[in-house]
């Protein structure tokens, strides 16, 4: 078991290939460094932003990693990281969960759209690049949606959910009572949700 945060463990492509080959020969424990390396980006940039629920995200991550180990024999090394393969498993799990639990229609629709756009098979970037791109893409989508909100709603979300200030501090910054700030945040999140869903319903371009 690694004693340091897994994200600090460098894992070169050659090493990754060797570990995968070992795992494919039946030494499944060889997958451990790979799972430790990619658990964090899968959770933070693939699963959680699509689910919005930390507990479910953790479950999906666990399921994703277990599935990867079980199906490692089916993986074909193509000279690039295993991360896109893991990511696709995670996205499929998220999608299945959305379908099974019949979660919020708008949020689920947004996720379906996003899956189609981001599952570009032509992408050959390495794991870190993919994770960074995905993180930026999520943030851009959030920022674009925030820009569509009224200024006070946008401020409420930025102060409370992004800067994570206390309700009291948020209310003080906006010059309102705590009760009024609660209403502002409530309406702001609902408005965000509306615009986020609407964006997903726009005609798709470039996806199949």
């Amino acid at each position, binding site marked *: 078991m690694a004693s340091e945060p897994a994200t600090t463990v460098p894992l070169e492509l050659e090493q990754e290939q060797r570990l995968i080959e070992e795992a494919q020969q039946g030494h*499944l424990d060889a*997958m451990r460094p790979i799972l430790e390396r990619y658990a964090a980006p899968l959770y933070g940039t693939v699963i959680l932003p699509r689910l919005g629920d930390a507990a479910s995200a953790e479950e999906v991550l666990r399921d994703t990693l*277990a599935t990867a180990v079980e199906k490692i024999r089916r993986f074909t090394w193509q000279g690039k990281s295993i991360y896109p393969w893991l990511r696709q498993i995670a996205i499929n799990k998220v999608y299945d969960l959305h379908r099974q639990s019949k979660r919020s229609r708008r949020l689920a629709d947004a996720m379906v759209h996003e899956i189609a756009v981001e599952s570009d098979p032509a992408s050959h970037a390495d794991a870190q690049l993919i994770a960074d791109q995905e993180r930026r893409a999520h943030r851009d989508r959030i920022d674009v949606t925030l820009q569509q909100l009224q200024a006070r709603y946008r401020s409420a979300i930025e102060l409370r959910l992004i800067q994570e200030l206390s309700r009291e501090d948020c209310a003080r910054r906006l010059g309102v009572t705590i009760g009024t700030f*609660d209403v502002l945040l409530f309406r702001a999140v609902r408005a965000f949700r509306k615009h986020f869903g609407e964006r997903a319903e726009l005609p798709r371009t470039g996806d199949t």
Partner: protein
Amino acid sequence: MATQDDDNVARIPDPDVEPTASELAHARRFAELVDKTLSGRTPPAMSADDRALLEVATVIRAAHGSLELAPSQQRAVVEDALRQAISTPASAGRGQVTSIAEGRSRLRRRAPWIVAGTSTLVAAAAIALLWLRVPGPGDAARGNPVARGAEVPQEWISRSADALVGPIARDHAGDAGARIDAIFADRLDGFRTRRLARGGKR
């Protein structure tokens, strides 16, 4: 499934519009949920509307990097995932593991055949048993004590008590007790005969 909030989401008032009492209460409840979520104590139970809104809030936070998997959680998830897929025998080193995933996969592939094979065997056994037990010409007599009457002593089988009691005259209709005593004595006599014939053994 569309939530109630999905249906109401288009009707979001401007920031300066006074909230209704119900909106005020919902807003306070949501604020408390956000409070708990920010401190890592998300309640497991909440309404579908609240959950949907909280998911949106979490998506926003996740996109801005506010939510990372703690190293301890990450290690636990990896260990759990590996444990799901593999098991390490006590005598084996860390590099030598036995795949239960392969076993599970094999079992999953073979399960329909195993079930079908077992069902077929059970059905065949049942048919064979039925065939072996099909009554032959003598079985009717063996299974029916009355029909066996010709082969066993009279006192061993069920029989009419008419011979003992005879026709019951109207003025003796009330003597049922005496008739029953007579029948009981006769049957007891038969029982004793049978018992003695076996040397007292049951």
